C-alpha cells in the first residue's frame, strides 16, 4: 500500500450551499483538478505507485468486497461478486467497457481522456483479481480521442500492459450491452445474444469474461492503492465512493461532474452552474431511464433514486425546463430507441416503433385517448420479451412520462400544449447503419 504522502482526494465544501450533507459534494478522485495526467510519472506522483498485484488475487478480491464497490456502468452490480464468479472459473479474460453508447452520457469518454492511467491501473488490478492474463479495452469507433489517449499510454507502459489491447466497437446504442460487446469481440455483430450463458460463464473466446465499465475499473485502481477504508470515506454506508455524472439540458454548464454517492441532486445541478429557468422535470438514468419531478433533495444514489421512482442507470441527468414540451422530447427519444433496436426479437422490432408512433401522436396533439390505450396494450407485449433489456427501457421511459406528465397529456388530448420552445433539447446521436 502507498504512503500517507499520496493525496487521494481533495474536497472543497461548497461555500454557497449551506444545506450540504456531511459527505462533501466536491470530490476529486477520478477527475482530479490539476495533475499531469499525460505521463506515467505525473500519474504516480498524484496517486502513488500501483501496489504489487501478482499472486494477490484473493487479497484483492477481499479488499474490493470490503470496499462495497458496485458497478458504475448501469446495472450497479456488486463488483466483488462479479470478481468472485469469474475468478472461480479460471482461464478468465477482462473486458473494459468504454463504449458508452448512451447519447446523453459523456462520463466514460471524459474519464478515458483525462485519466487513462487510472483506468489502465484498474484493468491491471482486475486482471490480477480474477487471474486473467489477457484484457481488451473496448472503445466506440467514433471516439477517436479516447482511443488515441489509450493507445499512447499503452505504448508508454508497454512492459506492464503487453497483454492488453484496444478494440473499436460500432457506434450503436446496444453495442455496449455486455453480451453484445462480447458478441462483437468474438467476431459477430455488436448485437446482444440470448443468455444464459452470460459472459462471466462463457464470453470472449468462450472463456469466463469479466466485463466492467471503465469507471468501475478506475475505482478498482483506487481501492487497490488505498484500501477499502479510505475508499469508503466518501459516499454513503451502503453505497460508498464517488460517481461520475453527465448533466445535460437546461443547466448553465452542462458536463461531467464527480460527486459522492448520496449527494442531493440540487448540489449536482449547482456544480453545473445551476438551472437559470423554471424546471419541469428531470430525466434520470439515460434514455432508458425515467422521468421524475424536479424534487432536488433526492440523493444521487441507488436507494435515494429508487424512492423517487428512478435509478442511476447510465448516470445522466437531463434537466427539462418548463418551456420545452416533455411529450415531444419523449417521443423523439423513443423514436431513437426504436431505431436502435438490434432487430433480432419480434416484440422489440414491432413493439417499439408502435409505441413510438403512439407517443408521436400524443406529442403532436389532437390525438385520441386511443393512443394511450394503444400504449397500455403494447406495454405488456413488449416488457421482458426481448433478449436484452432494450425494449424494457423504452417502455419504462414512456410509462414514466405518462405518469409524471399526466397533466400535459390531458392538455395535448385537448389540443393545447404548455410549452413554448420550438427546437428540441436533448442530444440524440446521428443514426449510423453499421452493426459490423
Amino acid at each position, binding site marked *: 500500500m502507498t504512503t500517507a504522502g499520496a493525496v487521494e482526494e481533495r474536497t472543497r465544501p461548497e461555500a454557497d450551499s449551506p444545506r450540504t450533507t456531511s459527505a462533501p459534494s466536491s470530490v476529486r478522485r477520478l477527475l482530479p483538478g490539476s495533475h499531469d495526467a499525460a505521463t506515467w510519472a505525473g500519474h504516480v506522483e498524484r496517486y502513488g505507485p500501483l501496489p504489487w498485484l501478482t499472486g494477490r488475487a484473493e487479497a484483492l478480491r477481499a479488499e474490493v468486497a470490503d470496499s462495497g464497490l458496485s458497478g458504475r456502468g448501469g446495472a450497479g452490480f456488486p463488483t466483488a461478486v462479479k470478481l468472485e464468479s469469474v475468478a472461480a472459473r479460471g482461464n478468465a479474460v477482462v473486458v473494459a467497457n468504454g463504449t458508452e453508447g448512451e*447519447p*446523453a*452520457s*459523456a462520463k466514460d469518454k471524459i474519464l478515458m481522456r483525462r485519466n487513462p492511467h487510472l483506468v489502465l491501473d484498474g484493468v491491471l488490478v482486475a486482471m490480477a483479481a480474477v487471474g486473467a492474463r489477457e484484457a481488451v479495452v473496448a472503445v466506440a469507433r467514433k471516439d477517436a480521442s479516447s482511443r488515441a489517449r489509450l493507445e499512447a499510454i499503452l505504448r508508454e507502459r508497454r512492459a506492464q500492459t503487453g497483454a492488453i489491447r484496444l478494440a473499436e466497437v460500432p457506434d450503436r446504442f446496444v453495442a455496449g450491452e455486455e453480451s453484445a460487446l462480447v458478441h462483437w469481440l468474438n467476431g459477430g455483430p455488436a448485437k446482444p445474444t440470448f443468455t444464459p450463458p452470460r459472459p462471466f460463464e462463457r464470453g470472449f473466446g468462450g472463456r469466463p469474461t469479466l466485463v466492467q465499465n471503465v469507471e468501475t475499473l478506475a475505482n478498482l485502481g483506487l481501492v487497490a492503492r488505498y484500501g477499502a477504508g479510505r475508499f469508503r470515506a466518501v459516499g454513503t454506508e451502503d453505497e460508498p465512493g464517488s460517481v461520475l455524472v*453527465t*448533466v*445535460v439540458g437546461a443547466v448553465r454548464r*452542462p*458536463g*461531467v461532474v464527480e460527486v459522492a454517492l448520496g449527494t442531493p441532486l440540487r448540489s449536482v445541478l449547482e456544480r453545473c452552474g445551476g438551472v437559470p429557468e423554471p424546471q419541469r422535470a428531470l430525466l434520470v438514468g439515460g434514455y432508458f431511464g425515467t422521468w421524475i419531478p424536479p424534487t432536488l433533495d433526492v440523493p444521487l444514489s441507488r436507494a435515494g433514486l429508487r424512492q423517487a421512482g428512478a435509478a442511476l442507470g447510465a448516470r445522466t441527468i437531463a434537466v427539462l425546463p418548463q418551456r420545452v414540451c416533455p411529450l415531444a422530447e419523449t417521443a*423523439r427519444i423513443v*423514436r*431513437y430507441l*426504436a*431505431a436502435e*433496436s438490434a*432487430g*433480432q*426479437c*419480434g416484440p422489440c*422490432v414491432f413493439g417499439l416503433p408502435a409505441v413510438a408512433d403512439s407517443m408521436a401522436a400524443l406529442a403532436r396533439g389532437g390525438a385520441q385517448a386511443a393512443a394511450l390505450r394503444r400504449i397500455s396494450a403494447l406495454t405488456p407485449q413488449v416488457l421482458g420479451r426481448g433478449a436484452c433489456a432494450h425494449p424494457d427501457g423504452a417502455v419504462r421511459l414512456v410509462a414514466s412520462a405518462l405518469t409524471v406528465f399526466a397533466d400535459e397529456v390531458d392538455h395535448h388530448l385537448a389540443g393545447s400544449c404548455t410549452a413554448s420552445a420550438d427546437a*428540441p*433539447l*436533448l*442530444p*440524440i*446521436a*446521428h*443514426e449510423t*447503419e453499421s452493426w459490423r
Partner: protein
Amino acid sequence: MNALVTSKAIWYVMRGSGVVSLLLLTGVVALGIATSVRWRPRELPGFVTAGLHRSVALLSVVFVVLHVASAVLDPYAVVGVAAVFVPLLAGKSAVWVGVGALSVDLVAALIVSSLLRPYLGRRLWSGVHWLAYAAWPLALAHGLGMGSDARTLWLRLLAASCVAGVLALLAWRVHGRTEGTKRLERRPRPRRLAEESGA
C-alpha cells in the same frame, strides 16, 4: 422363364418406385417451402403443414429404399450395393446412377439429421437441410438421365410439371415471407435526427 418374369417384375418395381419417389420428393420440397412461407389455407394450423412435410419425407424414404433395393436385385441393372451410395462405382450408365447415388446420400443425411435434430443443434441441422435444394434436382436428373422411360412423353411431362412447380415455389419462397418476420433491416430508414450538442 421364371427368372425372366422375376427380373421384369423387379424392373417394373424399380421404375415405378423411382417415379413415385420423384413425385413424393417434389411434394416434400413443396411442403417444406409452404412451411417456411407460413402458408395457412383457411386457418389450417402451421404444424399441420410442417407435419405433412415430415410425413411425406418419411414416406418417400420407403419408396426410395424400394427403388434402390430393386435396382440392386435386378440382374440387368448391374448396380452393386456400394454403388447405391458411392457415385461412379456402377458399370454402364455410371454417371446417372452416380447422380442418383448422390441424391440418396443427401436424402439420407436429411432424414438422419432431422431425426437427431434436438441433439445436433440448430446450426448443424440447418446447414444439412439446405442441401435439400440439391437433393431434389439430382433426383430429377437421375430420373431423366437413366434412360428407360426418359424418352417417353408421359415422363417428360411429369418431369416438366415437377420442375415448373418447384420453380414457382422457389419464387414464392424468395419473395413471399409475409407475416412474422423481423424486417427491421428492410424497413425504410427513419429520417435523420439532427445531432444536438451534448456535454
